[in-house]
């Protein structure tokens, strides 16, 4: 009996917590009468895809999606190219200055991004890359999150593997490309997922860096709906759902890596 009550309470809590997501989906499938109704309609009377069609045809959702893809994809590749070598070096190469570099990068993690938005804006204005996708993505490459994931992984790899290669006369670079990179796939996957999601969700900097609506990323575009299409709630919800597709897919496939990666790097929104 006590167990049943407990289960009912748990179920209730879960239902309340999932409700907003349910509401997001349901609203996006409603027609206008259902949305602007005075009574509660938990399900659409006539499920329709008209809001999705409207989002794609009457707004710039498609170019925004493309922009977000280009930005997130480029950031992810850039992060892997930049962070794999330094992550490996900090973990495995006993070189002078390693500690200093590590602490410098660590300390930089504490800098809230908000502190550098003004100088970055003026710097990029000077370079003439405001209002371009390059301007949106470049600051993301300087964020050291991936380094921590990669460094931590390589610290756990047995030294024997590397030493065998050195004895065979392989250079540091060959060892890295032929042995350590293939070995580091797990860390790479986690870094890829975390970087992609973070870049996709990025809001403050794209909001500042881009002024032409055609160059918005999807997060900025959706945020602007509030002002420009304020009362088309069903269409906005359809747009918000479209904007979340990559996260849903990533979450479904890589749940474990996402949870681990986020817990490990301790990044909070």
């Amino acid at each position, binding site marked *: 009996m006590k167990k049943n009550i407990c289960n009912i309470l*748990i179920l209730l809590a879960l239902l309340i917590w999932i409700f907003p997501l349910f509401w997001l989906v349901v609203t996006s499938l409603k027609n206008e009468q259902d949305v602007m109704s005075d009574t509660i309609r938990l399900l659409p009377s006539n499920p329709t895809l008209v809001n999705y069609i409207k989002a794609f045809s009457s707004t710039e959702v498609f170019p925004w999606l493309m922009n977000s893809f280009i930005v997130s994809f480029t950031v992810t590749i850039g992060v892997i190219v*930049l962070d794999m*070598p330094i992550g490996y070096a*900090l973990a495995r190469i006993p*070189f*002078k200055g390693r500690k200093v570099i590590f602490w410098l990068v660590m300390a930089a993690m504490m800098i*809230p991004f*908000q*502190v550098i938005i003004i100088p970055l804006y003026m710097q990029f204005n000077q370079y003439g890359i405001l209002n371009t996708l390059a301007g949106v993505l470049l600051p993301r490459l300087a964020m050291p999150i991936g380094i921590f994931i990669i460094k931590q992984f390589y610290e756990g790899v047995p030294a024997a593997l590397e030493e065998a290669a050195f004895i065979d006369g392989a250079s540091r670079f060959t060892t890295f490309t032929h042995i350590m990179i293939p070995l580091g796939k797990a860390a790479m996957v986690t870094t890829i997922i975390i970087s992609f999601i973070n870049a996709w969700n990025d809001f403050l900097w794209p909001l500042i860096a881009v002024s032409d609506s055609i160059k918005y990323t999807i997060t900025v575009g*959706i945020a602007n709906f509030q002002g420009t299409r304020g009362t088309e709630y069903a269409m906005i919800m359809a747009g918000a759902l479209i904007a979340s597709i990559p996260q849903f897919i990533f979450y479904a496939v890589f749940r474990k890596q996402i949870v681990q990666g986020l817990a490990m790097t301790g990044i909070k929104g």
Partner: protein
Amino acid sequence: MIPGNSDTKDGILFCLPFLIVFALFLIFPMLFGFFISFFDWDILSTRQWKGLGNYIKLFKDATFYSSLWHTLLFVLISTPILLVIGFLMALLVTSKSAFHGAAENVFFLPYVLSITVIGTLWAWIFQKNYGILNQFIKLFGGKPVGWLTETYPAMWSIIITTVWWTAGFNMILFSAGIKQISSEIYDAVKIDGANYIQTVFHVTLPLVKPTTVLCLILQVIASFNIFGQVYVMTGGGPHGSTRVLVQYIYENGFNYFKMGYSSAMAYVLFFIIMILSLIQYKVLGQEDY
């Protein structure tokens, strides 16, 4: 280690690509921002030296104080709620309940979504005339509330949204902490006849203290940086009642183009966060991890 040791050269070379980007887009802007904060500077006209003028003006600016106060209020109210809910979620997720797997997904999923999606979704839920929350209130005979358009409930609406968005993150940290507690301890207290509530208060809570401290600090730092929810849901309104520090920095910088003033404010925020981070470093250094 290797004959003809080239570790130092290799090490630097491996680090260099990142360090260049890092210097260009993080270190330089950080120093440049500090420089800007001593000038009167909009993008169009030439800069003018002001010395500490921006900082002095800041401490006389009533809006700055109210933004700081709103940020503090947000931190003070949301942090305990987020910790308690995160902990309760973790208890469920690490329990033997039939729902533990489903619960983990349900609680964590909101966290991976973008803040603009979260903000627009909750703005719709809180909408005065057609929002589902007011429809429920009307169903039970209450009067509709202007969740985002009235001064008092607006901050609460933002807090509720934030709790829904990020409590799952704290749950993950707490779950990791709880899973590390040895099952023998639980067996022992069970034999001693402790009930569930007693076990939670006298065993689980004290043993996850390091996690609690970690959560607390990460949470406070994250909350000081709050922006997206406010920008999307209220734009700082109504009547500036939800204007937080970053919102005010944004307004000064990009609505009024007072770059110097805005930078000075960003540095005050930075100073606050740095102190919090140092406390974090200190506390985490003492605890055994």
